[in-house]
């Protein structure tokens, strides 16, 4: 498991710094690219989803291929809420977050007792079981055809969701910024450090008196909540929820995005999400038949020639007077 203990300087950075950077770049991009708002919103909720995955995979050290279950549950909850109760987007977002967290807490109570490959397979099972149940409940969820017929009410009762998608994009950006802030606060808190400690050496943490499973469950539930929020945004901005939102391939894609950008540091999740989504979109519109060549080749190259090493080398060049030790644990055997 690749873990990088990054330089002390970044850990002392104020928790709002990452969010501020994302907000600035996001606003500039929103201003410059008014034609791409659909893609923009997609990137926003995908990035939030991958950040939530980073909490489980990068911070807690538990690779999962079933994280889409929380995303999907959040999406269906928000969709059903908009359809049957009230179309207010922020309330729906809250509903989605709670649904994702509840799903994570419920499934985590069972699966977190296992580790490694067993845990991975159990998360796949949980997601598939959830998907089967949702398909069965066709009357409520629309089954394989998807949940439709709802549209979000104006945001804060002022900003209607327009055709170009500008409101949706800002909504997604806002959620991403807030989610990133929450994640950063948690990761840098004592709780977050305890979870990192559990990742590195479970036995030692237990010996120190830290209740391992409850800590992991709390982190898992938090990650589930953020994933549910991402799902809620996708439901509201697309006005449709498909069963593909819980699929194995969505979980796998998110994991790929996370590893691509670098797990464990939160901003790697965002970088990976943006890079993968843009790459997929561009390659697919150039040639819809052969975009998989590009993605496959890119992934293999990234593993064989890791950009992290190049990035570290670049960073070292520009910070010759390094602030503090720059240690990176070597790849696990």
């Amino acid at each position, binding site marked *: 498991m690749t873990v990088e203990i990054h330089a002390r300087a970044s850990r002392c950075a104020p928790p709002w710094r990452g969010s501020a950077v994302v907000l600035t770049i996001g606003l500039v991009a929103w201003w410059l690219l008014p034609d791409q708002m659909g893609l923009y919103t997609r990137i926003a909720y995908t990035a939030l989803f991958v950040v939530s995955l980073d909490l489980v995979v990068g911070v807690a050290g538990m690779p999962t291929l079933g994280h889409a279950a929380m995303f999907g549950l959040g999406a269906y909850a928000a969709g059903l809420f908009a359809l049957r109760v009230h179309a207010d987007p922020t309330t729906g977002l809250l509903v989605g977050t709670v649904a994702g967290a509840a799903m994570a807490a419920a499934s985590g109570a*069972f699966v977190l007792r296992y580790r490694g490959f067993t845990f991975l397979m159990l998360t796949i099972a949980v997601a598939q079981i959830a998907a089967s149940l949702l398909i069965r409940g066709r009357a409520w969820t629309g089954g394989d055809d998807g949940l439709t017929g709802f549209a979000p009410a104006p945001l804060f009762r002022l900003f209607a969701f327009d055709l170009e998608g500008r409101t949706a994009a800002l909504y997604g950006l806002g959620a991403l910024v807030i989610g990133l802030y929450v994640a950063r606060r948690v990761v840098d808190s004592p709780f977050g450090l305890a979870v990192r400690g559990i990742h590195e050496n479970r036995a030692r943490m237990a010996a120190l008196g830290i209740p391992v499973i409850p800590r992991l469950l709390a982190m898992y539930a938090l990650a589930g909540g953020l994933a549910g929020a991402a799902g809620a945004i996708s439901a509201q901005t697309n006005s449709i929820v498909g069963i593909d939102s819980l699929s194995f391939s969505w979980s796998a894609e998110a994991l790929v995005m996370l590893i691509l950008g670098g797990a464990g540091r939160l901003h790697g999740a965002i970088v990976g999400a943006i890079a993968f989504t843009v790459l997929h979109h561009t390659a697919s519109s150039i040639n819809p038949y052969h975009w998989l060549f590009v993605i496959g080749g890119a992934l293999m190259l990234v*593993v064989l020639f890791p950009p992290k090493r190049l990035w570290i080398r670049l960073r070292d060049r520009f910070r010759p007077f390094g602030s503090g030790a720059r240690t990176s644990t070597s790849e696990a055997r």
Partner: protein
Amino acid sequence: MRVVANVLVDGLAYGMVLFVIAAGLSVTLGLMRFVNLSHGAFAMIGGYGAVVLTRDARCSFWLAMLAASTATGVVGAVLEALVLRHLYRRGELDQVLFTLGLTFFLIATTNALAGPQVQLIELPPRLAQPVDLGFRTLPAQRLLVLACGVVVALATAWVVTRARFGIWLRAAVDHPEMAAALGIPIRLVQNASFAVGAALAGLGGILGAELMPLEPYYALKYLVLVLVVVSVGGMGSLLGSLVASLMLGIVETASKYVASEWGSLFFFLAMALLLAWRPNGLLRPRAAA
């Protein structure tokens, strides 16, 4: 009663296909601790190889089956020796990423070479006939699958327990350092078992082409099933894989007969329960490293 008989016949056939494909992955995971998510691609390569041989080169089905499996084994050996073995030292996530990228690449290659539609292997007329067993008519090809599955199971069991290579294999899985210290050629064992695993996967792809149609996304679509079998059966345990694949094959088939609106719910429920009961696999009482 008839339903039970049907479930058994179809379930065992399905389970046998899963076993033949999963056997190689189980060994790779158990022996090299290498997460090879491109294993499904080997099954696909074997299947497509058989298609090309029977359709374009006009080979007989039996010859094509043998040739395509062997070719897949060779491909596996080459891949392992040149590229994959450098990843053994990397973390699991790197292995996942690389093998997924490789899978995507192979899917795209297959799509570019053969097109996106389903490919059918031309069966000899005797195999394409339905066979009347009295209580049930089934395609003769299913009987072939059952027979091959039994042969593969027996052959692997014999190799693992009696042949020297099998002893080396078991030693290397259980205690790699000790095995190396005793002079067992670990690299050879790794490469050979990877190659055999790939060949078996190719064979499984050919046998299962009726149940799991050959199309470019095959490599990814059935990956989950194979992973499930390996995890439930236990990494490195061939007998475990056999039992797991037969059990899960029967559960999946039974649910199709009796409760098809629930989809694969029971399959995954069974899998989750089995894993919860025996996290390290059905037949590996010792804790996995």
